[in-house]
């Protein structure tokens, strides 16, 4: 079985996001980058499946060479090889097209990724990939078991969860508690050094409807209301959220 795990590289969840006004983008100085937490869950589950059922696990990331230490970490966790598409995706659609085009040339039985990347929180990449490749799609998947070519999944639905069974191939957006987070072992770190990270040029020109974009910190109003004037609060809320 061949499993592809697509990972995002994002600022650590507890990062304070500030804006570099000269660039109109977030200030990357001093930010620590991590593998997207949901993607990390997906990867951990892929490695568990490799250990229990046997699988070839490939990690795919679209990004610059600065992400390589984190890709190496994925290899140290147990992925067999990695592919880096050398470019920066402008949106989920472009990223999904790149992933789909890679998979068309290199077929996989199972494509896993986090239910969303925690930078743009779009949560769309897996759905678009499934649509492009005409594969079965579920998200957010909280449990994943494989028996032959049969998958048993627990999927969050609005107001609850459902257990479903389906056939490979499939594209799944993952979230906790699909697997335990893993820490690379010393041996893993040593063997990762010789594993291959293949670098590919992006194959699809970016088309986008975006005309311009600027990013701001989300500013809250920080209006303090004396505790004996709750009516003032209610009046504000009537206006803001149509209470």
């Amino acid at each position: 079985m061949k499993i592809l795990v697509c990972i995002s590289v994002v600022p650590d969840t507890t990062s304070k996001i500030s804006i570099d006004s000269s660039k109109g983008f977030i200030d990357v100085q001093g930010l620590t980058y991590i593998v997207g937490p949901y993607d990390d869950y997906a990867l951990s589950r892929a490695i568990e499946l490799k250990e229990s059922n046997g699988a070839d696990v490939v990690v795919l990331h679209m990004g610059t060479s600065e992400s390589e230490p984190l890709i190496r970490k994925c290899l140290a966790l147990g992925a067999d090889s990695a592919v880096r598409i050398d470019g920066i995706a402008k949106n989920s659609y472009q990223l999904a097209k790149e992933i789909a085009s890679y998979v068309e040339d290199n077929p996989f039985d199972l494509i896993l990724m986090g239910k969303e990347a925690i930078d743009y929180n779009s949560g769309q990449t897996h759905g678009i990939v499934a649509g492009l490749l005409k594969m079965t799609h579920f998200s957010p998947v909280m449990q994943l078991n494989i028996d032959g070519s049969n998958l048993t999944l627990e999927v969050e639905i609005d107001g609850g969860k459902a257990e479903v069974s389906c056939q490979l191939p499939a594209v799944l957006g993952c979230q906790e508690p699909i697997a335990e987070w893993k820490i690379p072992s010393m041996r893993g770190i040593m063997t990762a050094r010789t594993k291959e990270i293949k670098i590919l040029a992006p194959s699809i020109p970016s088309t986008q409807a975006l005309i311009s974009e600027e990013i701001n910190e989300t500013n809250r109003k920080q209006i303090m209301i004396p505790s004996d004037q709750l009516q003032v609060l209610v009046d504000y809320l009537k206006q803001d959220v149509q209470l």
Partner: protein
Amino acid sequence: MKKIAIFIDFKGTELSSYTRTLLGFADTFFGSEVAYYLFSFAGPKQASIPQLKGSVIGYQINAGNSLFAETTELRKLGDQISALSIDEIWLSKSNTSDSVAGIISATLGFQIVPNIKQITQKGDSYLIQKSIFSGKATAHSELSSSHFVGIFPKGFGSDSNAASVEVNFESLDLETSKKYSIIKVDTHEGSIPLPEASIVVGAGRGMKDPGNWGIIEELAQTLHAATACSKPVSDINWRPHHEHVGQTGIKIAPKLYIACGISGAIQHLAGVNGSGKIVVINQDPEAPFFKHADYGIVGDLFDVVPRLTKILKEI
């Protein structure tokens, strides 16, 4: 004239409240120069909806199973939408909206814009504010208004006071041979599920004792809100785990979050930053949460919360 597809949801035979607010918003946004195509999965054949200024055609999608549509079914739906020459698709955020939006946009090549906080028209383009970095930042973009799939948080917009009209939903058969089967479905009964709530009341260690939650529940009931809690509170079993919001819990984006007796640790904020407006009630004027609040009240929650509930009950 623009053709807009809107995915609508029902609770039983009634339009869901977030669909009502989204339709209310669309009506003000587009005015009369628009044709609406309303698509529902497993909705009724006939339903009353608020009167819209544009023309309305309804479709009831028959996708074999209402819980999840198959990729091939959604691709067929994409082809139908394309055949109708639809310009834009609007949806409310849900667990299923992501499959629907992703697969349809893959078929049509439309660009998806999720987490929309605000949208205005500028000539032929849209100015959109969307929440990014889990609500810590906002992207202001200008983009072409055609070939666009917008995903709006539940509760976006406002309910219209328009009179109701009856709409017939023509059935649209997409059923294919099912590639999956459902083994079991579990739903949380009773209370409003957190990710669906448009208003959430959260409480933390400042509550002092699990027996004190009555005032939080009463406030929540008054506002038709769901209840949430901080991590330590669920860790010591004062509240159920599915109420825990934050970095390691559920991430919520209601239009209003009211935090009572929660200090505002960064791990808690990671789960609630996406909220439209935040109200913080805390007795400590130095509580970090006040820096991340739209409205702050310094006071004893055991005094403030019941008085707030009383005022709200009167409106």
